[in-house]
């Protein structure tokens, strides 16, 4: 029973391309998050959203944007992909009804060439 679904497991894009990473959750969670994970750097927060159409910058928002038009969907957009955005991208959702414990998606490994 998959609850947070990321659209792609592996993705290869060219430098300069606009890239869309999609995340859908079916738990009616109000909070959604995008992290990237790199060896030696841990999990770093890119953007998060605590309600539809709301977004907040995380620690490393440069080069990224997000969209949350519906409660269940949170999209991460790389406006012009660069090689330093090659990474594992993890989406997560949480709810105050569930004590804010995160449920993560399986991740998207993005390679920018």
């Amino acid at each position, binding site marked *: 029973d998959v609850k947070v679904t990321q659209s792609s497991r592996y993705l290869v894009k060219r430098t300069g391309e606009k890239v869309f990473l999609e995340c859908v959750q079916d738990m009616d969670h109000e*909070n959604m*998050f995008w*992290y990237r994970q790199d060896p030696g750097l*841990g*999990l770093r*927060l890119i953007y*998060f*959203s*605590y309600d539809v159409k709301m977004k*907040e910058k*995380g*620690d490393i928002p440069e080069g990224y944007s997000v969209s949350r038009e519906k409660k269940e969907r949170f999209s991460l957009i790389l406006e012009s992909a660069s090689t330093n955005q090659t990474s594992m991208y*993890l989406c997560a959702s*949480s709810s*105050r009804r569930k*004590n*804010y*414990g*995160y*449920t*993560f*998606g*399986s*991740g998207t490994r993005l390679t920018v060439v």
Partner: protein
Amino acid sequence: GQQVMQIPQYQHVQEGEDFTTYCNSSTTLSNIQWYKQRPGGHPVFLIQLVKSGEVKKQKRLTFQFGEAKKNSSLHITATQTTDVGTYFCAPLLYNQGGKLIFGQGTELSVKP
């Protein structure tokens, strides 16, 4: 901003040995969560600690929250190969939309 230091970064144990990872903060935490990430997998929520001095157990795993709420620990008794993975602590920021700040994690390897 809020940060936590997690130690050790790596731990290699023989199967059956105990393992402990520590999470330290310079500021008082409202609560803290723990996650496990298997190799090639994604982080999975283990537990949340809220009260000062709180101790919670999940089978061979024991989680503690310090009396001053500035540190936390995870102890695994008699490790098994299934315990392999990276363990993360993460303080929760209630006033920032339920945002978590993840520690760097402790990578545990278990030799059979």
